[in-house]
């Protein structure tokens, strides 16, 4: 049978169930969150319990649509207590022998700022759940304010650009790495332009969540917040990967591995020039951002080498 080439799996091969979300959900036009939620729902199957907060995904998950709805169980808790609220669920399910996956689905503001304390606590206790942070680099639902995920130089309503203020002065928190340092079973980054990669990670996440805490960091550009065209969000995701601005990697039991190795890395300007929130950046500011991106990538490479992982073949 050597002449039969092994068929490469396609994204749809990872689907285990129907899409749990009805048509007509209330996301902004061009928002990748809709794809993200539908994708999680299809890959992880029907037995998931979403835990979320007031956020961009709230209008859909909370059911604030007029007609659209979803089939999943949903627990809308407070911003501060997502991971601890989910802890209550997962501990009870474990005790009662219920086979269900608890999936926290929050934005970067909740995961990295206001809900960070409980997230870190749950990771340290190695609670059995998946925590998905969709990173749109700011508080988009309340009107595009900065968060600790907002990158250097980005313009938001609280880091305005003008005479006295030139966008955000500090870089973003390297959140997936922070979570990896909690030494939990599985940490990965993913984005919506690389769905196959994302699907593999979700499948691994579901397995790893039987052993302990899983953190997935999903890069999710915001159309109005980033001032991009409604048809550009997937391209922005792709550019973020190609420029190493958002490298796709995973850490399985402490072994780091880059899952999408980029052959010809583009300068970060390939991303910033297409995104409105970076439009005002001067070359020297872009250079600072490039420096941060390079530094982070070098650290990631060092971790991959240091944890003796075998890297994926180049794309």
């Amino acid at each position, binding site marked *: 049978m050597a002449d039969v080439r092994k068929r490469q799996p396609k994204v749809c091969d990872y689907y285990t169930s129907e899409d749990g979300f009805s048509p007509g959900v209330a996301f902004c036009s061009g928002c990748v969150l809709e794809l993200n939620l539908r994708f999680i729902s299809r890959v992880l199957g029907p037995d998931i319990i979403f835990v979320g907060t007031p956020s961009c995904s709230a209008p859909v998950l909370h059911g604030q649509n007029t007609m659209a709805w979803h089939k999943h169980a949903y627990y809308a808790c407070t911003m501060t207590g997502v991971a601890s609220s989910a802890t209550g669920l997962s501990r009870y399910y474990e005790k009662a022998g219920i086979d269900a996956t608890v999936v926290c689905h929050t934005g970067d503001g909740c995961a*990295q700022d206001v809900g*960070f304390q409980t997230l870190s606590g749950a990771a340290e206790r190695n609670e059995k759940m998946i925590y998905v942070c969709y990173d749109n680099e700011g508080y988009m639902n309340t009107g595009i*304010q900065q968060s600790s995920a907002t990158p250097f130089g980005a313009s938001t309503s609280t880091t305005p650009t003008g005479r006295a203020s030139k966008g955000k002065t500090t870089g973003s928190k390297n959140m997936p790495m922070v979570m990896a340092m909690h030494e939990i079973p599985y940490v990965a980054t993913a984005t919506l332009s690389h769905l196959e990669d994302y699907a593999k990670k979700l499948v691994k996440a579901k397995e790893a969540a039987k052993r302990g805490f899983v953190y997935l960091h999903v890069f999710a550009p915001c159309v109005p917040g980033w001032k991009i065209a409604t048809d550009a969000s997937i391209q922005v995701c792709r550019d973020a990967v190609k420029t190493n601005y958002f490298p796709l990697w995973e850490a399985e039991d402490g072994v780091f591995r880059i899952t999408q190795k980029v052959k010809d890395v583009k300068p970060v300007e390939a991303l910033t020039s297409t995104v409105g929130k970076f439009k005002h950046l001067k070359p020297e500011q872009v250079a600072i951002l490039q420096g941060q991106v390079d530094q982070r990538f070098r650290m990631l490479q060092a971790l991959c080498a240091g944890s003796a992982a075998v890297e994926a073949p180049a794309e």
Partner: protein
Amino acid sequence: MERWHTHVLREKIDPSSMLIQGNRACALGALDAGVRFFAGYPITPSSEIMEAMAVELPKVGGVFLQMEDEIASICACIGGSLAGQLAMTATSGPGFSLMQEAIGYAIMVEAPLLIVDVMRAGPSTGRPTAPSQGDVMQARWGTHGDHPAVVLAASNVADMYRLTMAAVRFAQRFRTPVTLLADEVVGHMRESFAPELIDRYRLTSGDFDFSPSYIHPELVREVHPPHVLGSEAHPHVTGLIHDETGFPTNDPQKSEKFLRELYDKVGNHRDELCLYDVKNEGKGRVCIVAYGSCARSARAAWKLAEKEGLQVEVLHLYTLFPLPVEIIQKVARRVEFMLIPELNLGQYAREVRKMAENWTTVISMGKIDGTLITPREILDRVTELVGKYESV
């Protein structure tokens, strides 16, 4: 005059009137009152205050901080305040709940602060874009232990400006946190706002002194001398009950003295702190006691009633706490009914009842469906009361 409206936009504007949002008017009021430190966290419906501060504070050399949550926001404000800079934060119900522990701390260490709570329908996430007055008792008793509270309530855009100034002044004079409550609709509403109006009703004399250890000469016997961190004195600041040296004490006499002094510095100055407006004074059998957006409906109801040949009195409260005991009791002596329309289930009506029930019948009119109380609804209730008891 020139001083404050230049903050709005760089271009020349017609000073007679301008269209401005309530939240933005609040930010301008704070800037004019001299606030140069803001730490906050985004939350609907108060985010515009923070956004305005993010734009304006860097221009005047102030400190603007977006913090990781509301607990961090108020704690940063206490830090700024203890370093000698009067600080401000703005939030809504859920964030205000998170702040409560630190508000108690600020009262204890006597840190002057301004907290703006733009109220949305609660509890919990509630309805973020629906107006409410559900945080009234949280503003009074949200933090634990016996403590004083200064709480103001804004009813329109001009109020957002002038009451912010008043709140800053009270905070600075009495060295205590002051809460300014606004209903969502007051924060988000845009209306014309004339500078002349501000001058006419200016509540503050503008005699701010922001030097860190300043206490107004009138108050030196009542307000404890501030401990300024960063001064040469190396002070000790603690949330434990302490004496005037700043060090903790377990002495029962000193403990009681300290707490009573905290209470009295506010309670003894009700005449200064209690701001209100009486309309149609001494006429009619019913007085509508109202604050926030309901006060506007109450004023409209009074005009409507006048057209229909009925007299009603309106007591518009700008200060909710300390309780305006004197004016409530004065009005209670002359009317048969006090009607209190509010966007909660009678939180403030209970307070009024305690003060006035010896002289009058206090009737609560609560609404919690996320809509405003209309003048007609108030008037219908008044007509019902007057008609019902006509023969009595």
